[in-house]
């Protein structure tokens, strides 16, 4: 019986393909693509002020609202944070990635890899919480500064307008540290992958041709591993752009994109405006992905 069914299917490879591909594809088309379309459609609707109901008529009202100075400020602030976090993570990630790729023994490499990827997969929220503890006014960082009598340094940093605040746990600088921490593994893994692909013979060739270690690094290793940096930056940039947890937990009243979307759809129930707002990061990310692809970053993913 099974034999006959198996033979029946064997003779119809297209049917088998349909049976395999059908369920996941239908799920994705209906749930995910369908939702994205609903998002797009909603961004052209508007909210009736008095009833709080969505009016299903075409309007560009929501997109017009994006160009108010408050909202442009939100976009600029978020993009600026995303860029700063991406650069900082690139700098922090490189030594560790380089060490894992070139100097760790195979056994060590496995453990280091796991050590990097566990935070990548686990406990996003809890790890944000950790920084709430660490950066709190009465927390470890303050204690540390006090210990060395450096309280004035901390106060000085916090008093800088734009990045300071009442405490580290309620300031852009605190957010910046937390963002760097949370997305760091996403930068390490692609850089490490790219570095692993640089053949050792190239480094030997470079030193054979008279380059010292620093020259080899600058002229051979860095250019060849750069696609990995770009690949990592896709994640750090995209994730920072869309996050609303960290600004909500550690930020001040100056909104980020994610927070705006979250609050419009939540308390205000204004899904059309939230939808239009989301088009911002989508457009930015698509542009970013296109540039990244040009730079060969997709090969390093």
């Amino acid at each position, binding site marked *: 019986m099974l034999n006959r069914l198996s033979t029946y299917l064997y003779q119809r490879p297209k049917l088998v393909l349909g049976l395999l591909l059908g369920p*996941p594809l239908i799920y994705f088309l209906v749930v995910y693509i369908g939702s*994205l379309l609903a*998002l797009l459609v909603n961004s052209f609707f508007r909210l009736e002020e008095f009833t709080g109901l969505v009016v299903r008529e075409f309007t560009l009202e929501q997109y017009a609202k994006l160009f108010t100075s408050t909202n442009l400020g939100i976009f600029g602030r978020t993009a600026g944070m995303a860029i700063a976090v991406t650069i900082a993570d690139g700098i922090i990630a490189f030594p560790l990635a380089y060490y894992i790729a070139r100097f760790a023994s195979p056994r060590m490499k496995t453990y280091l890899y*796991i050590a990097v990827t566990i935070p990548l997969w686990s406990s996003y929220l809890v*790890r944000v919480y950790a920084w709430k503890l660490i950066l709190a006014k009465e927390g470890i960082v303050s204690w540390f500064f006090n210990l060395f009598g450096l309280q004035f340094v901390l106060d000085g940093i916090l008093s800088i307008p734009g990045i300071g605040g009442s405490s580290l746990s309620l300031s852009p600088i605190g957010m910046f540290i937390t963002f760097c921490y949370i997305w760091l593994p996403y930068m390490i893994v692609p850089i490490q992958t790219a570095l692993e692909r640089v053949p050792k013979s190239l480094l030997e060739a470079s030193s054979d041709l008279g380059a010292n270690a620093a020259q080899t690094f600058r002229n051979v290793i860095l250019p060849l591993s750069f696609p990995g940096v770009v690949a990592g930056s896709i994640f750090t940039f995209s994730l920072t752009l869309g996050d609303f947890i960290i600004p909500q937990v550690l930020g001040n009243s100056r909104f980020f994109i994610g927070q705006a979307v979250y609050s419009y759809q939540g308390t205000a129930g204004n899904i059309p405006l939230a939808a239009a707002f989301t088009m911002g*990061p989508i457009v930015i990310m698509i542009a970013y992905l296109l540039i990244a692809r040009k730079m060969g970053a997709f090969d390093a993913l």
Partner: protein
Amino acid sequence: MPSKNYGEKASLGLTLGAIGGLLFLHVPIAIIFLYSFTTDEATYSFPLPGVTTKWFGVALQRADLWAALTLSLRVAVVATIAALILGTLAAAAVYRSNFFGREAISFLLVLPIALPGIVTGIALRSAIGTMNIPFSYWTIIIGHATFCIVVVYNNVLARFRRMQGSQIEASMDLGANSFQTFRYVILPNMATALLAGGMLAFALSFDEVIVTTFTAGQQSTLPIWIFSQLVRPRDRPVTNVVASIVILITFLPIFLAQRISAQSSETEGGAK
């Protein structure tokens, strides 16, 4: 164990940089465990004013926590099962035939994790709103499955591609029909990839907050419970305990999944 560079040593600066990076990644997690023993109820003061284990007991008594934990586990289990089935089917389809649009499928599946989580979240929220679907246990699961599928898909597809030689053909050649081949050859080959993919999907779902915020309505999963505590801290000591427990629950499956992947020398799935 010989290093790749035949005795060449990393410079002091590089070693320190690497160690610094590792500490930066892991010390904060250790601090959470430390705080779950604090006697301080009102602030996050350091050094800890005193040490106690009573908050574990208090946390165990909290019905709202138990409800959130149960909901999170139920969601994670069902989302993982759905992801295992759909992800494996998609991987098998992409592996076995060279159909038109194969690249597009991979791209489509990766989208939910390549785009910011908030996009998936608000998109699902729009669809739920537009179609007047009531929030439920199932709206959470549908949201989670969209980003869990790709994890299983990546793991299984990588394993298919790594499968040694023409084993499927060999099995059929030796008289096994498709179902027997699946049972005796494909499944044993895929077992650890399914296990690894499943555990990662589980951890991802158990932990997820961004998409969940948009699909849960008034329901509270464990991450949502924690999030509300982060925004408006009411039960600081209990939150510390819960945070420690979440780390423990997600740590084990991820650690095992990574070990399995490392053993089969796979580094796929590194992208969330």
